[in-house]
């Protein structure tokens, strides 16, 4: 089965986020498996603003192109630049080395609108 850490929150479109003061964002184990070999990631720059539910970037595998959607609104304060040279980290370690953005949340109440691990597991079963 796919790994779905309990301490993260999820979107139906398969992004995850931590709920820290600086939230980390990435895509789930299920998503990376569906995509197959990730070969390219397009991400915003530090200082850019994210709006919840809107596109913030693109992840491409050999076979498919997928938009990335923001789980929360906020300001980008970190970008995982390792993914530009090693996009396969998204496949190898989607919740750790394959993280994508660090974001200062604009509205912490938005975390509550996201799926819990249990709800996300039900969606992907």
């Amino acid at each position, binding site marked *: 089965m796919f790994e779905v850490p309990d301490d993260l929150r999820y979107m139906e479109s398969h992004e995850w986020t931590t709920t820290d003061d600086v939230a980390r964002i990435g895509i789930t184990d299920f998503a990376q498996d569906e995509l*197959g*070999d990730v*070969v*390219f990631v*397009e991400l915003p720059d530090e200082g850019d603003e994210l709006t919840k539910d809107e596109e913030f970037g*693109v992840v*491409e595998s*050999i*076979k498919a*192109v997928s938009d990335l959607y923001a789980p929360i609104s906020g300001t980008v304060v970190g970008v995982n630049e390792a993914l*530009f040279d090693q996009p396969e980290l998204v496949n190898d370690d989607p919740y750790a080395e394959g993280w994508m953005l660090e974001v200062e949340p604009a509205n912490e109440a938005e975390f509550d609108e996201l799926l819990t691990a249990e709800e996300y597991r039900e969606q992907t079963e």
Partner: protein
Amino acid sequence: MAHRKPPLREVHADRGATFTGFGGWEMPVEFDSIRTEHAAVRDSAGIFDVSHMSEIEVSGPDATELMQRLTTNDVTALDPGDSQYSCITDGSGVILDDTVVYALPDELTDADSPEPTYLFVPNAGHDEQMYERWTTHCDEWGLDATVDDRTEEWAMFAVQGPDAPDLVADAAGSDVLDLSRFEAAYATVAASECLVARTGYTGEDGFEVLCPWDAAETVWAEFDCQPCGLGARDTLRIEMGFLLSGEDFDPENEPRNPYEAGIGFTVKLDTEFVGRDALERAKKDGVDERFVGLKLDERGIARHGYELRDKDGESIGHVTSGTMSPTLGEAIALGYVKRNYAEPGTRIRVVVRGDEKRARIVNTPFLEDK
């Protein structure tokens, strides 16, 4: 409409394959990972189930005449056991399909017929259309030939890669190693009579094995190598610059003649065939756009339909196939550009999600441009 299933659909599912709809068939797209499967074919060997490819058999006294009039290459150049790459064009010279035409080896050819029996392999989902085309023209021209759709009688596997000859020799007997490229022979594999041809679509040495539909499982099991899906087949063929029907040409969405598509070598204007006169004019006048390879010089991947521009932002063509090359680690693509931009080395732009990315025209196969 439900997809047609290859005979090994459940065998592949049990092996963990994921599937995709392709040409009306439900086919394995990936067994392990595209990168793993692609590398296996380049470095050792892989086996593809390509049972979605169509097979049409043409026999009888006028079989040669019928094949000659409906394909662009010269079938009279084929001895029994030979095959050739060819096109099927409409009256205006537009490619309806590309195909390999086999003159079947002697053993199964009708002894009473002075003509060879042919088997040609249209692309997935084109069998009914090609059967119609052949039978209709056969009647219209008053020819004496028999046309049979064998698509769901022959399963087809491609064993490709540097280790493929040894694998196929182990399974089919070492005689198959005597076959030259585009030669075919009958051979027994897992106690079934198969047509074994030194053909393929990956740029590697290898064989395509046609076996009876009901023997598919035992024949497949004879080849102990990496199973590969359509995903790897696509990245391998793009690296070679090979055309894919429906992507790089399509009578509806991408109507192209063989000269535009870079396969003018399949056109023999000294034969008579549907589309010949139009193609003679196209050759004389030259083509406005040409099929080229390109590489991105900036981060990004060019995909089907992306626009190509010159440095001034003028539209000069579009991408028809593109991927990140697993072998080269670079973004490569195929597409059509206006002919004055088609020279290797020409700097162009690819519009990737609204942004212009620098790219350049390169020679194909991409692997030789390494």
